[in-house]
């Protein structure tokens, strides 16, 4: 019930933000009177989402509190702080790839995820991460011929030679 209430509030905030941005959509010179323009569907969607959010919230408030632990809580799923950690590692990959380049960023990603998943740091971890980075670099850059981020470090180092 509490989850539904929070979800309802989240949807209302989203709908409000979406609607506010929808009001800034410029009208087109191609618009005809009486015919929907580029802001029509966004406005309708914002209204629909508000209705859904309010109904969900009202239902959550009217529902009886659960007698025992919510059936929505699953023991085989990560709690949200832990789950966000994995996403954080993935997000950090972006600047790493930009500055350090693909192979190094990938090595760091593999090490970071393994440590985050509670693998003890030992030579095997670094060997697997190195092997993995080399494997993916070979697969994408060489076999598939798809360039991955070059980074700034390697060109900078190359400028000295």
């Amino acid at each position, binding site marked *: 019930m509490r989850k539904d209430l929070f979800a309802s509030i*989240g949807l209302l905030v989203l709908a409000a933000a979406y609607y506010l941005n929808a009001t800034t959509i410029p009208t087109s010179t*191609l618009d005809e009177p009486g015919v929907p323009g580029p*802001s029509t569907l966004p406005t309708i969607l914002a209204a629909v989402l508000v209705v859904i959010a309010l109904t969900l919230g009202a239902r959550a408030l009217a529902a009886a509190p659960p007698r025992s632990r919510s059936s929505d809580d699953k023991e085989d799923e*990560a709690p949200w702080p832990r789950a966000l950690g994995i*996403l954080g590692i993935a997000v950090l*990959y972006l600047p790493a790839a930009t500055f350090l380049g693909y192979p190094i960023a990938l090595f760091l990603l593999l090490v970071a995820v393994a440590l985050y998943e509670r693998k003890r740091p030992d030579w095997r971890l670094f060997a697997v991460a190195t092997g993995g980075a080399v494997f993916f670099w070979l697969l994408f850059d060489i076999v598939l011929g798809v360039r991955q981020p070059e980074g700034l470090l390697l060109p900078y180092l190359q400028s000295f030679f």
Partner: protein
Amino acid sequence: MLVTTPLAFAALGGLVWGVLGSSMPGMSASITMALLLPFTYTLEPTLAIVMLASCYIGAEYGGSVPAILIRTPGTNAAAATVLDGYEMNRQGRAGEALGISLWSGVIGGLWGLLMLILMTEPLSRLALQFRPTSYFGLGILGLSIIASLTGKSLLKGLAAATLGLMVSTIGTDPNSGVSRFTFGSPDLLEGIAPIFVMVGLFAVTELMTRSGVKPITISGARSIRVRLPRLPMMRKIARAQAVGCGIGSVEGLMPGAGGTLASFIAYNEARRWSKEPEKFGKGSEEGVAAPETANNTVASTALIPLLSFGIPGSNSAAVLLGGLLIHGLVPGPRLFEENPEVVVGLYTGSFVADIAQILVGTLILPASLWLVNRPKPYLSGFILALIMSGVYTVHQSLFDLGIVMTAGLLGYFMRYFGFPVLPAVLGVVLGNLVESNYRRSLQLSGGEFSIFLEDPISIVFLVLAVMVVSASLFNEWRVSAKARKERTA
């Protein structure tokens, strides 16, 4: 010559990846396909679609491996296989169960392919009669069905569909050329590609959800071998397979129903028609054959509404739709007229995959078991690396990775709060179809809404949409009234 070497390799490659990927608990068929999707961007369209379809076929068998060996289905559709498959394992008959699963998968796959070939083109001819009003009605019906059938709450399904439609409005409006919700970013002018939303909502969300959760391993892996059924066993399970084929044919056509529902209904019906119903739940061979035949039939029949009308019937079909879209292919009658080689290639590739399943499924079992037993910290890292590398191949843009991460975050919270993901995916995919046909219809009528009532096809679709939503609302009210009665009793 229908079967060319590249096509055969694409089918085999997709099949192998599908079996390997789905044998890992938590990696559903749609996630396995979503991980493959960015790779297919560099391939020729026909090969890309064949690879994805073969991956779907392989995934339906792959999901039964952990279902039988460790009581944990690799895909949702393999959940019914646990009931008797795991019992057979406990009786020391794991190899036999895997063999029945594999053989039933081949039968179901071939039958589903036959249905796909026979039904798709006639249905797509019907779509030639469609006007903008019909397409609008079809989009609304598709979204209504998916919102009603997936997840426990119609309200949450509709909210998810609305969120998906909202994402589809980002970018340049195709009708007027005006920018919407781009916040001045040139990367958003082309909108959000469904492929990135799918990879984020399916694969990244799953990684986040499973972080830190104790992994499951398969003990005694080295001694397990697939034992294909001999003629007497094939005859014994034939009736159950026929039931699975029938159920799978019907369920696959219904958007949102999918392999999971088909496999459970097939299990129940096979028990009803069996000569030994008392054996079900205690290691019945028919109890493995029926659901496996059904979910493999669905792997092909779920493509019928996709190829005919462009409405994906399942998560996996939605990923296949993503594959079609990134190659500029539009499902429907135009696909048959403008790109017949893609359709023929899909049929041929699926046939190759169905037949090759016997050999691949048998040979690849040791590799599947090895992969499942890898330490989870390494497995999670490799999957994340695959996502980051694969997504980058599409446009060579780190911005796309940002979209995938954002979709992953959204998907995680949707899952946390109990919102189904498929309606959101469908909203992103169908949003342009729904909006552009809505506006085109009103342009033709000069703003008169009566145009939607002048098209009989549109009326049928809109009435069906109302009926589906009403039935779902009634059902929810009935369930909550019953629960209230039980609480007060």
